[in-house]
């Protein structure tokens, strides 16, 4: 089955006051249709940058894409005309559920106004605008009555699907009248309305309480499985990745370390970093195990495998070259010269 | 603190307009300090030479002579002393009154702070010129009275600034945690809050100097300032009125002096604001 999304060899740099930070080092990532892929890692590992690269919303001026390709449904998002990508891909074929529900809505407009604005441009009933039309100022684009009514019905349906109470009245309310959990439900509805192929969920439950998080995760998983939508789910919380993902990819300091189906990932990790990470999770009545050392600076990162300064098994090879991808079994892949459980 | 001052100076050097402001102010200070040395006719402070009145600028009288025949250039230099004196004392007094009031009002959240802020609002509402006229009427026009009028009306600006900054600083974790450590209000306010808000105070003081000097000149112009023969710049302009436009140099010299002085303080103040606030906070911040 052809991949829906295939990132290969992606290299991204950020220009900072202190120098050039090599934020992504030849990252590869594959997402199949209908698959929920978890992207885990600690702060600074590059998972948010990767998500933004796919969407094409890296900070202008500061970020530079040095190499690699992002293949999505047969087109390379890095090399296509940005206007075409903006019209056809962003917000339509690929949508986002952002991290912080408290700042993702414009506080001055009603929820209904914001959702219908989304539908005006990205409704599945709207034909992709012709090249000439794209150049018109936004004011000139009409919102035909019939499509408006169809869209509004679809919106109400979507709000019901996310269990938002009283959808009709909700449309007339301002964002601050909703709780964090309710706003995330709204964001999920909005992310699914354009009938996307891929949803990028950027730490969507980090800001929520654990009981609300459980509800949201359950809802999200149910909806995406019903619709066969793929999800790229970034998180620093391994527990949420365990809950909702089919496959997990772990990153460290801008490099991928390991990718495996969820059960295998947590049960038989092959990469030393993954194992250390899992060991440092709090366990009842126990010994606390942390990882010696600190996360490296990306401006002068360690050579070769960036985890080698903190790894128990590092050898000269590890310092010299970045390990190539190695298959450990089926879908389980690792970037390591000395994967655990091998000779 | 010393390292802080050096840091500020080096940053300031990069800002051209701030440097211009600094140079202008230094020039002002030099003129005031070295007036007896730089003046060509130092005695013209008191002496009159009616025969030489209203002469255009020449080699002998660099900026011409006034209606009493005195050398305008020399009188201007001595006038610089008065200008600086008024500026420093008025702004200084405003600082000394306004900052503690602002600190008290900002730190406490009770009727005390409401009262202090309402009082400062009242003073803020009084126009400086009108108050100065009132004071001059009752106490007579003089240098101390000008300073009094200015201080009394300018301190609320400091009080408000300090009040706002103190209130916002109270939400900072380090203030709350030092209080939790058992620090007395005095320690908190004087050793922690005050140094943290020194930057906006300095900026306002610099701009305040410009503002105060301009107002002092206006008061002098209206005849409310020090009486003749004090070579106050505003009064000099007032004197020149009846001789305009023929004796153009008479008004131009003091006018230019006032303009350059005020601009100097404003430019420096703007430069200081750019250097002190965002960068210090960014560089001194976390991470």
């Amino acid at each position: 089955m052809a991949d829906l999304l295939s990132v290969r060899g992606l290299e991204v740099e950020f220009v900072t006051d202190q120098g050039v930070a090599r934020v992504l080092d030849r990252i590869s990532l594959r997402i199949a249709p209908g698959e929920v892929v978890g992207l885990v890692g600690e702060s600074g590992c590059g998972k948010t940058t990767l998500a933004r690269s796919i969407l094409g919303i890296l900070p202008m001026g500061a970020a530079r894409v040095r190499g690699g390709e992002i293949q999505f449904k047969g087109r390379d998002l890095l090399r296509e005309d940005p206007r075409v990508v903006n019209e056809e891909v962003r917000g339509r074929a690929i949508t986002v559920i952002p991290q912080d529900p408290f700042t993702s809505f414009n506080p001055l407009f009603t929820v209904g106004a914001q959702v219908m604005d989304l539908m005006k441009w990205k409704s599945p009933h709207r034909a992709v605008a012709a090249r000439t039309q794209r150049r018109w100022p936004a004011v000139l684009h009409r919102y035909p009555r019939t499509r408006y009514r169809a869209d509004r019905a679809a919106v109400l349906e979507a709000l019901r699907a996310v269990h938002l109470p009283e959808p009709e009245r909700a449309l007339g309310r301002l964002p601050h009248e909703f709780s964090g959990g309710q706003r995330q439900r709204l964001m999920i509805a909005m992310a699914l309305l354009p009938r996307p192929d891929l949803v990028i969920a950027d730490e969507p439950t980090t800001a929520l309480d654990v009981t609300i998080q459980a509800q949201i995760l359950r809802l999200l998983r149910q909806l995406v499985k019903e619709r066969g939508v793929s999800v790229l789910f970034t998180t620093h919380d391994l527990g949420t990745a365990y809950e909702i993902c089919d496959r997990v990819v772990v990153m460290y300091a801008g490099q991928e370390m390991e990718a495996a189906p969820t059960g295998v990932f947590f049960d038989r990790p092959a990469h030393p970093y993954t194992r250390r990470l899992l060991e440092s999770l709090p366990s009842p009545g126990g010994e606390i195990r942390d990882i010696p050392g600190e996360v490296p600076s990306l401006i002068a990162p360690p050579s070769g495998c960036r985890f080698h300064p903190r790894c128990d098994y590092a050898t000269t090879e590890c310092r010299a070259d970045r390990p190539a991808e190695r298959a450990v079994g089926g879908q389980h892949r690792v970037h390591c010269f000395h994967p655990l459980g091998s000779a | 603190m010393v390292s802080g001052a050096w840091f500020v100076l080096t940053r300031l050097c990069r800002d051209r307009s701030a440097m211009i402001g600094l140079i202008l102010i230094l020039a002002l200070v030099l003129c005031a300090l070295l007036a007896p040395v730089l003046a060509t006719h130092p005695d013209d402070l008191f002496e009159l030479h009616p025969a030489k009145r209203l002469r255009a600028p020449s080699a002998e009288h660099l900026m011409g002579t006034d209606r009493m025949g005195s050398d305008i250039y020399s009188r201007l230099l001595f006038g610089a002393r008065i200008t600086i004196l008024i500026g420093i004392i008025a702004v200084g007094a405003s600082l000394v009154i306004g900052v503690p009031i602002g600190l008290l009002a900002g730190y406490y959240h009770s009727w005390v702070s409401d009262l202090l802020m309402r009082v400062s609002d009242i003073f803020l509402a009084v126009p400086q010129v009108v108050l100065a006229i009132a004071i001059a009427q009752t106490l007579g026009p003089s240098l101390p009275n000008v300073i009094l009028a200015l201080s009394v009306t300018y301190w609320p600006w400091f009080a408000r600034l300090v009040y706002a900054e103190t209130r916002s600083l109270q939400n900072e974790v380090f203030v709350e945690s030092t209080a939790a450590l058992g620090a007395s209000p005095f320690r908190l306010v004087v050793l922690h809050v005050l140094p943290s808000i020194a930057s906006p105070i300095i900026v306002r003081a610099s701009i305040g100097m410009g503002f105060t000097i301009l107002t002092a000149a206006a008061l002098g112009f209206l005849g409310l300032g020090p009486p003749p023969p004090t070579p106050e710049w505003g009064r000099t302009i007032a004197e020149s009125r009846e001789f305009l436009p023929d004796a153009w140099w008479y008004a131009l010299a003091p006018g230019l002096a006032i303009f350059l002085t005020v601009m100097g303080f404003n430019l420096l103040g703007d430069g200081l604001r750019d250097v002190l606030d965002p960068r210090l906070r960014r560089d001194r911040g976390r991470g």
Partner: protein
Amino acid sequence: MTETPARYGPPPLLELRELARHFPIRNAFGRRIGWLRAVDGVSLDVWPGETLGLVGESGCGKSTLGKTVMGIFTPTAGEIRFLGEQIGRLRGAARRRVAKHLQYVYQDPGASLDPRWKIRRLLHEPLIIHTTLPRAERETEVQTILRAVGLPGAHLDLYPHELSGGQQRRVGLARILTLHPRLVILDEPTSGLDVSVQASVLKLFRSLQSTFALTYLFISHDLAVVRMMCQRVAVMYLGRIVELADTTALFQTPRHPYTQSLLAAVPQIGGRRVTQEFALEGEPPSPRQMPSGCRFRTRCPIAVARCAAEEPALREIAGQQVACHLA
């Protein structure tokens, strides 16, 4: 309100009795239209040497409780006894003296450092405030404490922003430890931290606890961390304690429906998927309009009529304290 005194030597270090902290809710004109009852009648004891966990979700009042005990907020009602002495009503210099023995660690201890002060001055300050030690002796104390948190003496001449986040955290802790407090309130100490950093921080807390003979009140929303660090746990919901028990007992046999839902919501790697079974619907009611009777009844799967009529008190069942009519 009996705990298990035999296990921990009497008397309790901290005793809270019906502690309450209410915030006025004002409308646009400044008129008070109601009360936000953030902490609404909390009673518990903290015993010397233990680590008592205080868990709950946002809005439950745990942070407010910590700050009220610390004196950052003054109590609206109820008593706080520390080392046998009433401290809830103390003000001014008397209250400040308590800080020598009762301290509070913010979520980001590095943020508690004045960015304009050098580390040396920051560490001397608590001693200047609370003791009359001369400079040389203060310096020795400071050096000792610095070593105890694992930092080199050279750091004394640096400014906070010249240290890394982790080092700033240690300095923040050192500042508190110079006073050798008896009880330390830790407010969400690991919130927002990466897993491996969290592990290092918790390790540090444990070692400091044994070096300095500290007692911890550990406030957190992270149940896994609390389970690892605490001997006893209190669960809060909308300003009250709904369950209080030994850690093992609480996690094995939670008796309050809210505790059960809370535990059911936490992802457990290697175990069942929460999302398949999780049943708790709805959101917590606004603290401004609390339901009558039991505050949890609007979301409780087993609520009955009595729950709306009467608010349950904490009562003891098999060694655990539970506030539920049906437990």
